[in-house]
């Protein structure tokens, strides 16, 4: 299927139409990601990066709540049928949960550059994260490294790489590119939006962040690359993660007096 930017716009309009069916229950719908920034990559950008904020009372009344769920599930079914990448449904929150948003994404959600209100009120200045959420965000680098980066080590010496291996390496490289700079900034105490994380990181640590751009460019033609080159970019990516990890650990140990 030849996917175009117009297909995304069409899906967005359909989604908005569905959200209007929530009537008074919906307070705001916030878009983030490539659709909000206007840099959609047809066939690759994901639908539907959005937060739906519902009135608190919806969660207090069973009939109202189930009606809202039905509308949102129907919206998901339509998005699934659109033929566009739809890896995960949108988020939904009650308004009394607005200060419990994920701290690591909060600067992105609040930013005019990275998010867009598509329905209802602009509530971005009311958004917040709890203290627990902030602690989790600051420590998330370690778990992202453990769960998504270190397991890629298995491919450093594997010959040959299967199609499945290549798929897993590509997914892992995407994780490194998208979440390592952001979570590293939070681990170092700097709260930034996703799009600024690499630039900020290059200013606060002595680590070469060019590898992120190299990964991005490599991934565009990864299916045509020989195994050797894939292992090479993987090694560079893991070296980057490990250097950051050493730097973060060092700073934590210095702060705690060893």
């Amino acid at each position, binding site marked *: 299927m030849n996917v175009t930017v117009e297909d995304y716009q069409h899906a967005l309009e359909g989604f908005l139409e569905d959200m209007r069916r929530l009537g008074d229950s919906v307070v705001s719908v916030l878009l983030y990601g490539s659709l909000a920034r206007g840099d959609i990559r047809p066939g690759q950008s994901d639908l539907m990066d959005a937060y739906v904020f519902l009135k608190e009372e919806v969660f207090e009344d069973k009939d109202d709540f189930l009606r809202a769920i039905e509308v949102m599930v129907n919206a998901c079914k339509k998005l699934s049928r659109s033929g566009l990448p739809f890896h995960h449904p*949108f988020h939904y929150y009650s308004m009394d949960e607005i200060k419990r948003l994920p701290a690591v994404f909060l600067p992105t959600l609040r930013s005019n550059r990275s998010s867009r209100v598509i329905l209802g009120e602009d509530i971005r200045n009311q958004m917040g994260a709890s203290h627990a959420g902030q602690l989790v965000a600051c420590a998330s680098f370690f778990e992202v490294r453990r769960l998504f980066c270190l397991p890629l080590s298995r491919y450093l010496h594997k010959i040959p790489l299967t199609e499945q291996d290549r798929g897993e390496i590509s997914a892992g490289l995407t994780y490194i590119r998208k979440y390592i700079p952001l979570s590293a900034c939070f681990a170092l105490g700097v709260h930034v939006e996703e799009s600024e994380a690499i630039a900020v990181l290059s200013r606060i640590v002595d680590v070469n962040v060019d590898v992120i751009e190299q990964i991005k460019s490599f991934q565009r033609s990864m299916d045509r690359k020989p195994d050797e080159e894939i292992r090479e970019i993987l090694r560079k990516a893991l070296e980057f993660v490990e250097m950051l990890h050493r730097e973060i650990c060092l700073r934590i140990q210095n702060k705690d007096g060893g």
Partner: protein
Amino acid sequence: MGFPMVSQEIRDFTRRFVNQHPEDVESILYYPHPFARGGLVLVFKDEVEFLPDLISDAYGELPQGISLYCLRSSELFELSLPGLFMPPMIINERPHLAFCLKHKGILLYGRDIRNEIDAPPNPKMLLEAHIEGCLLYLRDHGILRWLERGAYETLIRELDAQLRHLMATALLAYNVWDVDAEIVFDRFRELYHDREIEEIWRAFSHLVQEAADENSALEAVWLFERFLRRMRRISDERHS
């Protein structure tokens, strides 16, 4: 959770790994976990420069479902971090990890580091973080997705597991960590005495016994949301 047995598979893995890297490994521990299949902690000497080359084979040879933590001896603090709450994609082992390692961990090789592991510094916050993980990930990756796909049985089973896991996280505030999914509600009831949670639990348990269909799945979602809201209030009351 009884005292753990270490399988021959894990012992063989440990032996092979130590033989391959005798100069670099400082310690290897096995731990059981009440909500996961348990795992191994490989502790390396601080002088080790680049871990991925050393653990490259380990990931390929690891017994199915066993978690792996690889760190240097000066990085043991990582074992007490809160981890990531991303249900239903990932079971966050970390809230119970330090306790399991300290009290039920088995030293398979090298230096005994169990006394050097600290308990999580603020267990009350773990419940708040767990609830927030459910708001962010379980609603979209779980609830909406399962309903959209008609995966009603999965939805009820997974929400049931999550209710139990949330109660286990809440029990950490009382320093109670040695519970499994079967006994968690009884321990929770003894310590929290919360009527609303008990009522939701009974209704949910009834649903689990029935054949899953759209109606029972929607009922499960409603009960789960009520449970989350009540747990949130409990968490807030404990903070205030």
